[in-house]
Protein backbone atom coordinates (compact mmCIF):
# COMPACT_ATOMS: atom_id res chain seq x y z
CA UNK A 1 0.00 0.00 0.00
CA UNK A 2 2.86 2.37 0.85
CA UNK A 3 4.34 1.67 -2.60
CA UNK A 4 1.03 2.53 -4.20
CA UNK A 5 0.77 5.79 -2.26
CA UNK A 6 4.33 6.63 -3.22
CA UNK A 7 3.60 5.87 -6.88
CA UNK A 8 0.42 7.89 -6.76
CA UNK A 9 2.15 10.91 -5.19
CA UNK A 10 5.03 10.87 -7.68
CA UNK A 11 2.90 10.20 -10.75
CA UNK A 12 0.70 13.11 -9.72
CA UNK A 13 3.72 15.37 -9.20
CA UNK A 14 5.15 14.47 -12.60
CA UNK A 15 1.80 15.11 -14.26
CA UNK A 16 1.28 18.45 -12.49
CA UNK A 17 4.80 19.63 -13.31
CA UNK A 18 4.44 18.51 -16.94
CA UNK A 19 1.29 20.61 -17.17
CA UNK A 20 2.92 23.61 -15.50
CA UNK A 21 5.97 23.35 -17.75
CA UNK A 22 3.83 22.62 -20.83
CA UNK A 23 5.79 24.89 -23.22
CA UNK A 24 8.94 22.87 -22.39
CA UNK A 25 7.15 19.59 -23.05
CA UNK A 26 5.74 20.79 -26.36
CA UNK A 27 9.11 22.20 -27.44
CA UNK A 28 10.72 18.83 -26.78
CA UNK A 29 8.05 17.02 -28.79
CA UNK A 30 8.51 19.48 -31.62
CA UNK A 31 12.30 18.98 -31.57
CA UNK A 32 11.93 15.24 -32.04
CA UNK A 33 9.39 15.80 -34.80
CA UNK A 34 11.80 18.13 -36.62
CA UNK A 35 14.55 15.51 -36.29
CA UNK A 36 12.20 12.96 -37.82
CA UNK A 37 11.39 15.37 -40.68
CA UNK A 38 15.09 15.82 -41.33
CA UNK A 39 15.55 12.04 -41.47
CA UNK A 40 12.47 11.63 -43.65
CA UNK A 41 13.48 14.23 -46.22
CA UNK A 42 17.03 12.91 -46.13
CA UNK A 43 15.76 9.47 -47.10
CA UNK A 44 13.41 10.95 -49.67
CA UNK A 45 16.05 12.96 -51.51
CA UNK A 46 19.29 11.09 -50.88
CA UNK A 47 18.26 7.51 -50.03
CA UNK A 48 17.80 4.54 -52.30
CA UNK A 49 14.26 4.77 -53.82
CA UNK A 50 14.01 0.95 -53.86
CA UNK A 51 14.17 0.74 -50.07
CA UNK A 52 12.38 4.03 -49.41
CA UNK A 53 9.43 2.55 -47.51
CA UNK A 54 11.55 0.35 -45.28
CA UNK A 55 13.95 3.16 -44.53
CA UNK A 56 11.18 5.58 -43.61
CA UNK A 57 9.53 3.01 -41.38
CA UNK A 58 12.88 2.30 -39.76
CA UNK A 59 13.47 5.97 -39.07
CA UNK A 60 9.95 6.51 -37.70
CA UNK A 61 10.37 3.79 -35.10
CA UNK A 62 13.96 4.79 -34.33
CA UNK A 63 13.22 8.48 -33.76
CA UNK A 64 10.23 7.61 -31.58
CA UNK A 65 12.37 5.23 -29.53
CA UNK A 66 15.25 7.60 -29.35
CA UNK A 67 12.95 10.20 -27.84
CA UNK A 68 11.58 7.68 -25.36
CA UNK A 69 14.94 6.29 -24.26
CA UNK A 70 16.56 9.72 -24.13
CA UNK A 71 13.88 11.28 -21.99
CA UNK A 72 13.50 8.27 -19.72
CA UNK A 73 17.17 7.37 -19.38
CA UNK A 74 18.31 10.87 -18.50
CA UNK A 75 15.30 11.39 -16.30
CA UNK A 76 16.60 10.33 -12.86
CA UNK A 77 19.93 12.06 -13.47
CA UNK A 78 18.16 15.29 -14.41
CA UNK A 79 15.79 14.80 -11.52
CA UNK A 80 18.69 14.54 -9.03
CA UNK A 81 20.39 17.62 -10.51
CA UNK A 82 17.15 19.61 -10.45
CA UNK A 83 16.42 18.59 -6.86
CA UNK A 84 19.94 19.57 -5.83
CA UNK A 85 19.55 22.94 -7.57
CA UNK A 86 16.17 23.53 -5.96
CA UNK A 87 17.55 22.46 -2.60
CA UNK A 88 14.97 19.72 -2.14
CA UNK A 89 17.28 16.73 -2.57
CA UNK A 90 18.05 16.48 1.16
CA UNK A 91 14.35 16.67 1.94
CA UNK A 92 13.82 13.65 -0.37
CA UNK A 93 16.54 11.84 1.57
CA UNK A 94 14.44 12.37 4.73
CA UNK A 95 11.85 9.96 3.37
CA UNK A 96 11.82 6.58 5.12
CA UNK A 97 10.85 5.01 1.80
CA UNK A 98 14.32 5.60 0.31
CA UNK A 99 15.23 7.79 -2.62
CA UNK A 100 15.64 4.91 -5.05
CA UNK A 101 11.99 4.00 -4.55
CA UNK A 102 10.92 7.61 -5.00
CA UNK A 103 12.94 7.82 -8.20
CA UNK A 104 11.64 4.48 -9.42
CA UNK A 105 8.03 5.60 -8.98
CA UNK A 106 8.84 8.92 -10.63
CA UNK A 107 10.37 7.18 -13.62
CA UNK A 108 7.35 4.89 -13.94
CA UNK A 109 5.16 7.99 -13.95
CA UNK A 110 7.44 9.76 -16.36
CA UNK A 111 7.64 6.71 -18.64
CA UNK A 112 3.86 6.54 -18.83
CA UNK A 113 3.67 10.21 -19.77
CA UNK A 114 6.52 9.85 -22.27
CA UNK A 115 4.77 6.86 -23.79
CA UNK A 116 1.79 9.08 -24.59
CA UNK A 117 4.20 11.57 -26.17
CA UNK A 118 5.85 8.77 -28.13
CA UNK A 119 2.49 7.66 -29.53
CA UNK A 120 1.71 11.27 -30.53
CA UNK A 121 5.11 11.50 -32.21
CA UNK A 122 4.59 8.17 -33.96
CA UNK A 123 1.25 9.22 -35.35
CA UNK A 124 2.59 12.61 -36.42
CA UNK A 125 5.49 10.91 -38.19
CA UNK A 126 3.26 8.30 -39.84
CA UNK A 127 0.82 10.98 -40.96
CA UNK A 128 3.63 13.08 -42.44
CA UNK A 129 5.26 10.19 -44.27
CA UNK A 130 2.14 8.31 -45.24
CA UNK A 131 3.81 5.13 -43.98
CA UNK A 132 1.57 3.31 -41.51
CA UNK A 133 3.16 0.92 -39.05
CA UNK A 134 1.50 -1.76 -37.02
CA UNK A 135 1.53 -0.54 -33.39
CA UNK A 136 0.45 -3.99 -32.22
CA UNK A 137 0.18 -3.08 -28.50
CA UNK A 138 -0.33 -6.67 -27.30
CA UNK A 139 3.16 -7.47 -28.57
CA UNK A 140 4.99 -4.19 -28.19
CA UNK A 141 3.92 -3.41 -24.61
CA UNK A 142 5.44 -6.58 -23.02
CA UNK A 143 8.70 -5.99 -24.96
CA UNK A 144 8.70 -2.31 -24.03
CA UNK A 145 8.15 -3.13 -20.37
CA UNK A 146 11.12 -5.51 -20.33
CA UNK A 147 13.26 -2.99 -22.22
CA UNK A 148 12.25 -0.30 -19.78
CA UNK A 149 13.91 -2.22 -16.92
CA UNK A 150 17.38 -1.82 -18.46
CA UNK A 151 16.68 1.83 -19.25
CA UNK A 152 15.85 2.40 -15.58
CA UNK A 153 19.09 0.66 -14.61
CA UNK A 154 21.19 3.01 -16.75
CA UNK A 155 19.14 5.92 -15.48
CA UNK A 156 20.11 5.00 -11.90
CA UNK A 157 23.79 4.88 -12.92
CA UNK A 158 23.53 8.39 -14.35
CA UNK A 159 21.69 9.53 -11.22
CA UNK A 160 24.46 8.10 -9.02
CA UNK A 161 26.98 10.10 -10.99
CA UNK A 162 24.76 13.17 -10.65
CA UNK A 163 24.65 12.83 -6.85
CA UNK A 164 28.44 13.01 -6.71
CA UNK A 165 29.34 15.52 -9.41
CA UNK A 166 26.01 17.36 -9.97
CA UNK A 167 27.13 19.21 -13.12
CA UNK A 168 26.44 16.38 -15.56
CA UNK A 169 24.61 18.35 -18.23
CA UNK A 170 27.61 18.32 -20.57
CA UNK A 171 27.93 14.57 -20.16
CA UNK A 172 24.21 14.10 -20.90
CA UNK A 173 24.50 16.17 -24.06
CA UNK A 174 27.19 13.83 -25.39
CA UNK A 175 25.27 10.84 -24.11
CA UNK A 176 22.23 11.64 -26.27
CA UNK A 177 24.33 10.97 -29.38
CA UNK A 178 25.57 7.68 -27.93
CA UNK A 179 21.92 6.77 -27.38
CA UNK A 180 21.09 7.82 -30.92
CA UNK A 181 23.76 5.48 -32.25
CA UNK A 182 22.50 2.63 -30.07
CA UNK A 183 18.93 3.11 -31.29
CA UNK A 184 19.68 3.66 -34.99
CA UNK A 185 22.42 1.08 -35.65
CA UNK A 186 20.67 -2.19 -36.61
CA UNK A 187 21.70 -5.30 -34.71
CA UNK A 188 22.33 -7.05 -38.04
CA UNK A 189 25.23 -4.62 -38.61
CA UNK A 190 26.63 -4.74 -35.07
CA UNK A 191 25.37 -7.89 -33.29
CA UNK A 192 27.57 -7.24 -30.21
CA UNK A 193 25.34 -4.23 -29.41
CA UNK A 194 22.76 -6.73 -28.14
CA UNK A 195 24.76 -6.74 -24.91
CA UNK A 196 24.27 -3.00 -24.51
CA UNK A 197 21.19 -1.92 -22.57
CA UNK A 198 17.81 -1.74 -24.37
CA UNK A 199 19.23 -2.28 -27.93
CA UNK A 200 17.82 -5.80 -28.18
CA UNK A 201 14.41 -4.56 -27.02
CA UNK A 202 14.34 -1.70 -29.50
CA UNK A 203 15.33 -4.09 -32.28
CA UNK A 204 12.52 -6.46 -31.33
CA UNK A 205 9.89 -3.71 -31.22
CA UNK A 206 11.11 -2.35 -34.54
CA UNK A 207 10.76 -5.82 -36.06
CA UNK A 208 7.25 -6.23 -34.62
CA UNK A 209 6.09 -2.87 -35.92
CA UNK A 210 7.64 -3.13 -39.35
CA UNK A 211 6.81 -6.77 -40.01
CA UNK A 212 3.53 -6.88 -38.07
CA UNK A 213 4.64 -9.81 -35.89
CA UNK A 214 2.66 -11.27 -33.02
CA UNK A 215 4.03 -12.21 -29.62
CA UNK A 216 4.15 -15.92 -30.47
CA UNK A 217 6.21 -15.24 -33.58
CA UNK A 218 9.15 -14.01 -31.50
CA UNK A 219 11.57 -16.71 -30.33
CA UNK A 220 11.51 -17.38 -26.59
CA UNK A 221 15.31 -17.10 -26.52
CA UNK A 222 15.00 -13.46 -27.56
CA UNK A 223 12.69 -12.78 -24.61
CA UNK A 224 15.08 -14.64 -22.28
CA UNK A 225 18.03 -12.63 -23.54
CA UNK A 226 16.12 -9.37 -23.14
CA UNK A 227 15.02 -10.27 -19.60
CA UNK A 228 18.53 -11.23 -18.45
CA UNK A 229 20.05 -8.16 -20.10
CA UNK A 230 17.49 -5.89 -18.43
CA UNK A 231 17.87 -7.46 -15.00
CA UNK A 232 21.67 -7.18 -15.13
CA UNK A 233 21.54 -3.47 -16.00
CA UNK A 234 18.83 -2.81 -13.41
CA UNK A 235 20.75 -4.48 -10.58
CA UNK A 236 24.00 -2.84 -11.68
CA UNK A 237 22.24 0.53 -11.82
CA UNK A 238 20.86 0.19 -8.30
CA UNK A 239 24.24 -0.97 -7.00
CA UNK A 240 26.03 2.05 -8.54
CA UNK A 241 23.33 4.39 -7.22
CA UNK A 242 23.63 3.04 -3.66
CA UNK A 243 27.44 3.26 -3.73
CA UNK A 244 27.24 6.85 -4.92
CA UNK A 245 24.67 7.68 -2.22
CA UNK A 246 26.99 6.29 0.46
CA UNK A 247 29.92 8.28 -0.89
CA UNK A 248 27.82 11.46 -1.03
CA UNK A 249 26.71 10.98 2.58
CA UNK A 250 30.27 10.37 3.67
CA UNK A 251 31.60 13.46 1.91
CA UNK A 252 28.58 15.65 2.66
CA UNK A 253 27.70 16.15 -1.01
CA UNK A 254 23.92 15.72 -0.83
CA UNK A 255 23.15 19.35 -0.07
CA UNK A 256 25.75 20.78 -2.41
CA UNK A 257 25.32 22.00 -5.93
Amino acid sequence: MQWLNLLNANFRKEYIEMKRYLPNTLALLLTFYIIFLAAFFGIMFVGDPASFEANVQYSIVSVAFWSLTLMTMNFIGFSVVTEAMRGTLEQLYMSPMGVWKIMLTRIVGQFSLQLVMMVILLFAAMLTSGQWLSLNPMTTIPILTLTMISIVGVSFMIAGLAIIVKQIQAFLQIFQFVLMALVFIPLSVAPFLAFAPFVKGVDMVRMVMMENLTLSAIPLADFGFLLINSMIYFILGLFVFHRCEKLAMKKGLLGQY
Partner: protein
Amino acid sequence: MEKIIEVRGINKQYVKRKTKEVITAVNDVSFDVHRGEVLGLLGPNGAGKTSTIKMICGLLQADAGSIHINGLDIKKKRLKALKHISAVLEGNRNLYWRLTVRENLEYFAGNRGLSRKDVKEQVEKLLKQFRLKEKENELVNGLSRGMQQKLAIAVALLANTEVILLDEPTLGLDVEISYELREILKMIVKEEKRTIIISSHDMPVVQELCDRTIIINKGTVVVDEKVENLLKLFETRAYSIKLGGTLSVAQEQQLLVKFPLCTYEGSSHETVVNINLEKSEDIYDLFDIFKAEGTVVESIDRTTIDFEQVFMEIVKGEKAYAMA
Protein backbone atom coordinates in the same frame (compact mmCIF):
# COMPACT_ATOMS: atom_id res chain seq x y z
CA MET B 1 12.52 10.53 30.99
CA GLU B 2 13.19 8.00 28.30
CA LYS B 3 15.94 8.78 25.79
CA ILE B 4 14.82 9.02 22.17
CA ILE B 5 18.07 10.25 20.64
CA GLU B 6 21.51 9.11 21.77
CA VAL B 7 24.53 10.78 20.23
CA ARG B 8 27.85 9.26 21.23
CA GLY B 9 31.26 10.65 20.36
CA ILE B 10 30.51 11.76 16.83
CA ASN B 11 33.25 13.26 14.69
CA LYS B 12 33.14 14.83 11.26
CA GLN B 13 36.00 16.18 9.23
CA TYR B 14 35.93 17.70 5.78
CA VAL B 15 38.82 17.97 3.37
CA LYS B 16 39.01 21.18 1.34
CA ARG B 17 39.15 20.28 -2.33
CA LYS B 18 41.83 22.71 -3.43
CA THR B 19 44.14 22.96 -0.43
CA LYS B 20 43.47 19.46 0.98
CA GLU B 21 43.25 21.14 4.35
CA VAL B 22 41.37 19.04 6.93
CA ILE B 23 38.64 20.90 8.77
CA THR B 24 37.10 19.45 11.90
CA ALA B 25 33.41 20.34 11.89
CA VAL B 26 32.34 18.15 14.82
CA ASN B 27 34.68 16.79 17.44
CA ASP B 28 33.63 14.10 19.92
CA VAL B 29 30.10 15.38 20.45
CA SER B 30 27.85 13.38 22.79
CA PHE B 31 24.41 14.13 24.16
CA ASP B 32 21.00 12.60 24.74
CA VAL B 33 17.58 13.95 23.94
CA HIS B 34 14.65 12.76 25.99
CA ARG B 35 11.16 12.03 24.78
CA GLY B 36 9.02 15.17 24.75
CA GLU B 37 11.99 17.46 25.35
CA VAL B 38 12.62 20.67 23.40
CA LEU B 39 16.35 21.05 22.91
CA GLY B 40 18.11 24.15 21.63
CA LEU B 41 21.27 23.63 19.64
CA LEU B 42 23.29 26.82 19.64
CA GLY B 43 26.62 28.00 18.41
CA PRO B 44 28.25 30.63 16.24
CA ASN B 45 28.47 30.21 12.47
CA GLY B 46 30.60 27.21 11.53
CA ALA B 47 30.37 25.74 15.04
CA GLY B 48 29.10 22.39 13.74
CA LYS B 49 25.36 22.69 14.43
CA THR B 50 24.16 21.94 10.91
CA SER B 51 26.63 19.07 10.54
CA THR B 52 25.33 17.61 13.81
CA ILE B 53 21.71 17.96 12.67
CA LYS B 54 22.49 16.40 9.29
CA MET B 55 24.21 13.49 11.01
CA ILE B 56 21.13 12.94 13.19
CA CYS B 57 19.01 12.95 10.02
CA GLY B 58 21.37 10.49 8.35
CA LEU B 59 22.13 12.95 5.54
CA LEU B 60 25.75 13.03 6.57
CA GLN B 61 27.74 10.09 7.83
CA ALA B 62 29.83 10.55 10.96
CA ASP B 63 33.51 9.58 10.67
CA ALA B 64 33.32 8.09 14.16
CA GLY B 65 30.79 7.63 16.93
CA SER B 66 27.17 6.56 16.80
CA ILE B 67 23.67 8.01 16.70
CA HIS B 68 20.61 6.06 17.80
CA ILE B 69 17.07 7.22 17.14
CA ASN B 70 14.57 5.32 19.24
CA GLY B 71 17.20 2.62 19.60
CA LEU B 72 17.87 2.40 15.86
CA ASP B 73 21.39 3.03 14.60
CA ILE B 74 21.11 5.76 11.96
CA LYS B 75 24.09 4.35 10.08
CA LYS B 76 22.82 0.79 9.87
CA LYS B 77 19.05 1.29 9.88
CA ARG B 78 18.70 4.75 8.37
CA LEU B 79 15.33 4.26 6.69
CA LYS B 80 13.73 2.69 9.76
CA ALA B 81 15.14 5.46 11.95
CA LEU B 82 13.77 8.09 9.56
CA LYS B 83 10.25 6.91 10.37
CA HIS B 84 10.76 8.69 13.69
CA ILE B 85 12.22 11.96 12.35
CA SER B 86 11.19 14.81 10.14
CA ALA B 87 13.14 17.99 9.57
CA VAL B 88 13.04 21.50 8.26
CA LEU B 89 16.54 22.02 6.99
CA GLU B 90 18.43 25.27 6.77
CA GLY B 91 17.55 27.59 3.89
CA ASN B 92 14.28 28.27 2.17
CA ARG B 93 14.20 25.42 -0.31
CA ASN B 94 12.49 22.62 1.56
CA LEU B 95 9.53 22.83 -0.82
CA TYR B 96 8.59 22.53 -4.48
CA TRP B 97 8.06 26.04 -5.73
CA ARG B 98 5.99 25.02 -8.75
CA LEU B 99 3.51 23.09 -6.62
CA THR B 100 0.77 24.71 -4.56
CA VAL B 101 0.65 24.79 -0.76
CA ARG B 102 -1.76 21.85 -0.63
CA GLU B 103 0.10 19.90 -3.32
CA ASN B 104 3.33 20.22 -1.33
CA LEU B 105 1.69 18.90 1.83
CA GLU B 106 0.15 15.98 -0.04
CA TYR B 107 3.30 15.21 -2.03
CA PHE B 108 5.60 14.99 0.99
CA ALA B 109 3.03 12.85 2.82
CA GLY B 110 2.96 10.58 -0.24
CA ASN B 111 6.73 10.31 -0.13
CA ARG B 112 6.38 8.85 3.34
CA GLY B 113 3.95 6.26 2.00
CA LEU B 114 0.79 8.05 3.17
CA SER B 115 -2.22 8.53 0.92
CA ARG B 116 -4.07 11.82 0.43
CA LYS B 117 -7.01 10.25 2.22
CA ASP B 118 -4.82 9.32 5.20
CA VAL B 119 -3.72 12.92 5.74
CA LYS B 120 -6.85 14.77 4.61
CA GLU B 121 -7.99 15.80 8.07
CA GLN B 122 -4.53 16.70 9.25
CA VAL B 123 -3.84 18.78 6.14
CA GLU B 124 -6.99 20.78 6.88
CA LYS B 125 -5.96 21.21 10.51
CA LEU B 126 -2.46 22.37 9.61
CA LEU B 127 -3.70 24.77 6.93
CA LYS B 128 -5.89 26.41 9.54
CA GLN B 129 -3.31 26.25 12.34
CA PHE B 130 -0.64 27.90 10.16
CA ARG B 131 -3.10 30.37 8.60
CA LEU B 132 -2.42 29.00 5.14
CA LYS B 133 -5.97 28.00 4.24
CA GLU B 134 -6.51 31.05 2.02
CA LYS B 135 -3.29 30.30 0.17
CA GLU B 136 -3.79 26.55 -0.22
CA ASN B 137 -4.09 26.70 -4.02
CA GLU B 138 -1.30 29.21 -4.58
CA LEU B 139 2.09 28.22 -5.95
CA VAL B 140 4.83 28.28 -3.35
CA ASN B 141 7.01 30.60 -5.44
CA GLY B 142 4.36 33.28 -4.98
CA LEU B 143 4.42 33.09 -1.19
CA SER B 144 6.43 35.30 1.15
CA ARG B 145 9.51 33.85 2.85
CA GLY B 146 7.58 33.65 6.12
CA MET B 147 4.69 31.75 4.53
CA GLN B 148 7.14 29.35 2.88
CA GLN B 149 8.80 28.69 6.22
CA LYS B 150 5.43 28.10 7.88
CA LEU B 151 4.56 25.62 5.13
CA ALA B 152 7.92 23.85 5.53
CA ILE B 153 7.18 23.38 9.23
CA ALA B 154 3.65 22.20 8.45
CA VAL B 155 5.11 19.62 6.04
CA ALA B 156 7.44 18.39 8.81
CA LEU B 157 4.53 18.15 11.25
CA LEU B 158 2.35 16.28 8.77
CA ALA B 159 4.84 13.41 8.82
CA ASN B 160 3.58 12.77 12.36
CA THR B 161 7.01 11.76 13.63
CA GLU B 162 8.06 11.74 17.27
CA VAL B 163 11.10 13.90 16.58
CA ILE B 164 11.20 17.14 14.62
CA LEU B 165 14.43 18.91 13.78
CA LEU B 166 14.27 22.58 12.92
CA ASP B 167 17.45 24.08 11.53
CA GLU B 168 17.31 27.88 11.81
CA PRO B 169 13.50 28.11 11.56
CA THR B 170 13.39 31.91 11.89
CA LEU B 171 16.46 32.77 9.82
CA GLY B 172 15.87 35.62 7.39
CA LEU B 173 12.34 36.36 8.62
CA ASP B 174 11.16 39.81 9.58
CA VAL B 175 10.28 40.56 13.21
CA GLU B 176 6.54 40.14 12.75
CA ILE B 177 6.70 36.80 10.96
CA SER B 178 9.41 35.60 13.32
CA TYR B 179 7.12 36.39 16.24
CA GLU B 180 4.18 34.62 14.58
CA LEU B 181 6.31 31.58 13.91
CA ARG B 182 7.53 31.59 17.49
CA GLU B 183 3.94 31.62 18.71
CA ILE B 184 3.09 28.70 16.42
CA LEU B 185 6.12 26.78 17.65
CA LYS B 186 5.10 27.50 21.24
CA MET B 187 1.66 26.10 20.50
CA ILE B 188 3.19 22.99 18.92
CA VAL B 189 5.44 22.48 21.94
CA LYS B 190 2.46 22.86 24.27
CA GLU B 191 -0.10 20.83 22.35
CA GLU B 192 1.81 18.21 20.42
CA LYS B 193 4.29 17.04 23.08
CA ARG B 194 6.79 16.06 20.44
CA THR B 195 10.55 15.92 20.81
CA ILE B 196 11.97 18.96 19.06
CA ILE B 197 15.54 20.00 18.34
CA ILE B 198 15.91 23.62 17.31
CA SER B 199 19.13 24.97 15.94
CA SER B 200 18.96 28.74 15.99
CA HIS B 201 20.71 32.06 16.33
CA ASP B 202 17.42 33.53 17.47
CA MET B 203 17.86 33.64 21.24
CA PRO B 204 14.27 34.58 22.12
CA VAL B 205 13.18 31.42 20.28
CA VAL B 206 15.53 29.30 22.36
CA GLN B 207 14.75 31.10 25.61
CA GLU B 208 10.99 30.80 25.12
CA LEU B 209 10.76 27.31 23.69
CA CYS B 210 13.61 25.16 24.87
CA ASP B 211 13.88 23.14 28.05
CA ARG B 212 17.56 22.52 27.60
CA THR B 213 20.32 23.92 25.49
CA ILE B 214 23.51 22.60 24.03
CA ILE B 215 26.07 25.14 22.96
CA ILE B 216 28.57 23.99 20.39
CA ASN B 217 31.69 25.96 19.66
CA LYS B 218 34.44 24.92 17.27
CA GLY B 219 32.82 21.51 16.89
CA THR B 220 32.76 20.72 20.61
CA VAL B 221 29.97 20.83 23.17
CA VAL B 222 30.81 23.61 25.63
CA VAL B 223 27.52 23.66 27.51
CA ASP B 224 24.75 21.12 28.01
CA GLU B 225 22.39 22.63 30.55
CA LYS B 226 18.78 23.56 31.19
CA VAL B 227 17.99 27.05 29.93
CA GLU B 228 16.54 27.95 33.31
CA ASN B 229 19.72 26.88 35.14
CA LEU B 230 21.96 28.77 32.76
CA LEU B 231 20.01 31.96 33.26
CA LYS B 232 20.05 31.50 37.03
CA LEU B 233 23.73 30.79 37.07
CA PHE B 234 24.59 33.94 35.22
CA GLU B 235 21.95 36.12 36.76
CA THR B 236 22.44 35.56 40.49
CA ARG B 237 25.99 36.81 40.65
CA ALA B 238 25.72 39.93 38.54
CA TYR B 239 24.99 43.10 40.53
CA SER B 240 24.73 46.81 39.92
CA ILE B 241 25.29 48.74 43.18
CA LYS B 242 24.56 52.44 43.48
CA LEU B 243 26.59 54.27 46.14
CA GLY B 244 26.15 57.75 47.57
CA GLY B 245 29.30 59.77 46.85
CA THR B 246 32.61 58.65 45.43
CA LEU B 247 34.94 55.80 46.26
CA SER B 248 38.16 56.62 48.08
CA VAL B 249 41.54 55.68 46.56
CA ALA B 250 41.92 52.95 49.19
CA GLN B 251 38.50 51.52 48.31
CA GLU B 252 39.35 51.58 44.59
CA GLN B 253 42.59 49.69 45.25
CA GLN B 254 40.84 47.10 47.41
CA LEU B 255 38.19 46.58 44.74
CA LEU B 256 40.85 46.09 42.09
CA VAL B 257 42.69 43.54 44.19
CA LYS B 258 39.65 41.56 45.29
CA PHE B 259 37.47 41.93 42.19
CA PRO B 260 39.65 42.65 39.17
CA LEU B 261 36.73 42.39 36.69
CA CYS B 262 34.62 44.90 38.58
CA THR B 263 33.86 48.23 36.86
CA TYR B 264 32.62 51.48 38.30
CA GLU B 265 31.68 54.89 37.05
CA GLY B 266 30.25 57.91 38.72
CA SER B 267 30.11 61.58 39.53
CA SER B 268 30.86 63.58 42.68
CA HIS B 269 27.63 62.57 44.37
CA GLU B 270 27.06 59.02 43.09
CA THR B 271 28.98 55.93 41.93
CA VAL B 272 27.65 52.80 40.19
CA VAL B 273 29.64 49.62 40.73
CA ASN B 274 29.02 46.74 38.30
CA ILE B 275 30.31 43.44 39.50
CA ASN B 276 30.12 39.79 38.61
CA LEU B 277 30.78 37.73 41.72
CA GLU B 278 32.46 34.38 41.37
CA LYS B 279 31.01 33.05 44.62
CA SER B 280 27.86 34.11 46.42
CA GLU B 281 29.73 34.79 49.68
CA ASP B 282 31.95 37.38 47.95
CA ILE B 283 29.16 39.86 48.51
CA TYR B 284 30.22 40.12 52.21
CA ASP B 285 33.78 41.07 51.22
CA LEU B 286 32.38 43.67 48.85
CA PHE B 287 30.23 45.22 51.53
CA ASP B 288 33.13 45.22 53.99
CA ILE B 289 34.99 47.51 51.57
CA PHE B 290 32.06 49.95 51.50
CA LYS B 291 31.41 49.68 55.26
CA ALA B 292 35.03 50.39 56.22
CA GLU B 293 34.69 54.01 55.10
CA GLY B 294 30.98 54.42 55.80
CA THR B 295 30.00 54.58 52.12
CA VAL B 296 26.24 54.74 51.76
CA VAL B 297 24.69 51.98 49.65
CA GLU B 298 21.63 53.52 48.00
CA SER B 299 20.44 50.58 45.91
CA ILE B 300 21.40 47.07 44.86
CA ASP B 301 20.07 45.68 41.61
CA ARG B 302 20.58 42.19 40.42
CA THR B 303 21.49 42.62 36.77
CA THR B 304 18.99 40.84 34.58
CA ILE B 305 20.67 38.85 31.89
CA ASP B 306 18.99 37.49 28.82
CA PHE B 307 19.88 34.33 27.02
CA GLU B 308 21.74 36.18 24.31
CA GLN B 309 24.19 37.57 26.86
CA VAL B 310 24.63 34.13 28.42
CA PHE B 311 25.36 32.70 24.99
CA MET B 312 27.82 35.46 24.12
CA GLU B 313 29.67 35.10 27.41
CA ILE B 314 30.01 31.34 27.01
CA VAL B 315 31.04 31.44 23.38
CA LYS B 316 33.48 34.30 23.82
CA GLY B 317 34.91 32.58 26.87
CA GLU B 318 34.42 35.70 28.95
CA LYS B 319 32.83 33.60 31.61
CA ALA B 320 34.35 30.35 32.65
CA TYR B 321 31.65 27.75 32.64
CA ALA B 322 32.19 24.45 34.34
CA MET B 323 30.28 21.64 32.73
CA ALA B 324 27.98 19.94 35.19
